[in-house]
């Protein structure tokens, strides 16, 4: 059986990718952020996942207005890096894990989650920045990745409750995969509070974010009751990305051990939230 070692949440601010790509990680502004990821770099070596199940949102890159899946799963062998307007990020192509991805897709569709199956897709900063934050600059990613894009661009995104329940189904599906000893880590990316548009741009709600970080481990059910209106109002129009943290949380065991927590304002416009959890399987 495959094993879910743990989960990791992180923002995926594109400027963090640019700072790494342009060698600016030692500048004081950026160093304060990257220092928060030192623990992740050692943790991921200890955890040594074979596969990262990476929940993120596409930022109008693979999905235009022509077609917007609520939940999609990348089943391809590999995923090229998208050109978001300044050429593709100089990072390796992402290799998938079709065996596990297809197994999960079949399982959760039969569990009545209405996924879109994807066999061809480019991936944007939402997926690559988290990988860079954890693995740094590498020639090849030392891990397979299953991209799991969630719509948070076109209103309405899936509800917090739906995301948490989906996470549970994903966890069950991953654990039932028959390949012996496959080690899986689940990433929930996006957030925390930020607003990138209009006269309210720059909004940060530290109190909301810290409460979210307090609850996501021991009491995620409380967070599933947050409405879209509350996310939009309290965490900014782009803070609603936080629903994706609940997918990660749902996939982990009931009890989890928090091994790292980081909160920092700002990275560009965003409150960076980064946490690491380990499963406490019975």
């Amino acid at each position, binding site marked *: 059986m495959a094993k879910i070692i743990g989960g990791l949440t992180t923002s995926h*601010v*594109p*400027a963090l990718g*640019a700072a790494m790509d342009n060698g600016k990680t030692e500048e004081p502004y950026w160093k304060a952020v990257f220092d928060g990821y030192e623990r992740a770099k050692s943790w991921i070596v200890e955890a040594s996942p074979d596969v990262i199940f990476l929940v993120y949102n596409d*930022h*109008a*890159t693979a999905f*235009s*207005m022509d077609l917007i899946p609520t939940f999609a799963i990348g089943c391809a062998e590999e995923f090229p890096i*998208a*050109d*978001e*307007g*300044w*050429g593709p990020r100089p990072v390796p192509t992402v290799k998938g894990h079709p065996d596990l991805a297809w197994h999960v897709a079949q399982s959760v569709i039969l569990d009545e989650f209405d996924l879109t199956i994807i066999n061809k897709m480019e991936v944007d900063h939402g997926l690559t920045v988290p990988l860079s934050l954890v693995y740094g600059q590498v020639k090849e990613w030392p891990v397979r990745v299953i991209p799991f894009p969630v719509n948070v*661009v*076109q*209103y*309405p995104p899936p509800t917090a409750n739906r995301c948490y329940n989906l996470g549970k189904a994903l966890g069950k599906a991953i654990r039932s995969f028959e390949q012996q000893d496959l080690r899986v880590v689940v990433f929930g990316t996006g957030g925390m*509070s930020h*607003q*990138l*548009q*209009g*006269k*309210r*741009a*720059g*909004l*940060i*709600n*530290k*109190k*909301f974010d810290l409460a979210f970080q307090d609850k996501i481990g021991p009491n995620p059910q409380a967070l599933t009751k947050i409405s*879209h*209106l509350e996310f*939009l*109002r*309290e965490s900014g*129009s*782009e803070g609603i990305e936080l629903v994706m943290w609940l997918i990660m949380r749902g996939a982990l065991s009931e009890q989890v051990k928090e091994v790292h927590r980081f909160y920092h*304002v*700002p990275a*560009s*416009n965003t*409150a960076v939230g980064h946490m690491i959890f380990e499963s406490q399987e019975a």
Partner: protein
Amino acid sequence: MPKVNDYDDIPGTTVFDAARSRKGYHLNSFCMSLMKAENRAAFKADEEGYLKRFGMTEAQRQAVLKRDWNWMIQEGGNIYFLAKLFFTDGNSFQYAAAEMTGMSQEDYAKMMLAGGRPIEGNRSKSEWENRG
């Protein structure tokens, strides 16, 4: 459809819902086209000519030519689509965000370093109206 939504009460915020998405279809499609280097080159060489390839309204075209980000959003633009345009210009999310607030990027960056725009007083349109 001047439908009233609960989120319309949030000040300085345009939720990208069905109405906005429909209004912005061609504007956002133009932005997506900038994900190819040859299209960026063609756009830079002749902005007005390039824009004619898309079924955009005159307002959408003018908003693009003027790089008026709030206007683009009013015309159905979504920030993640518009990012392709300001990335093409060599600018960042922080640049665009500052522009939209009417602050200089320096002042905006200072605000962010000081903890960002506070939530207090920024939850509801009534709060903005009352602050005079």
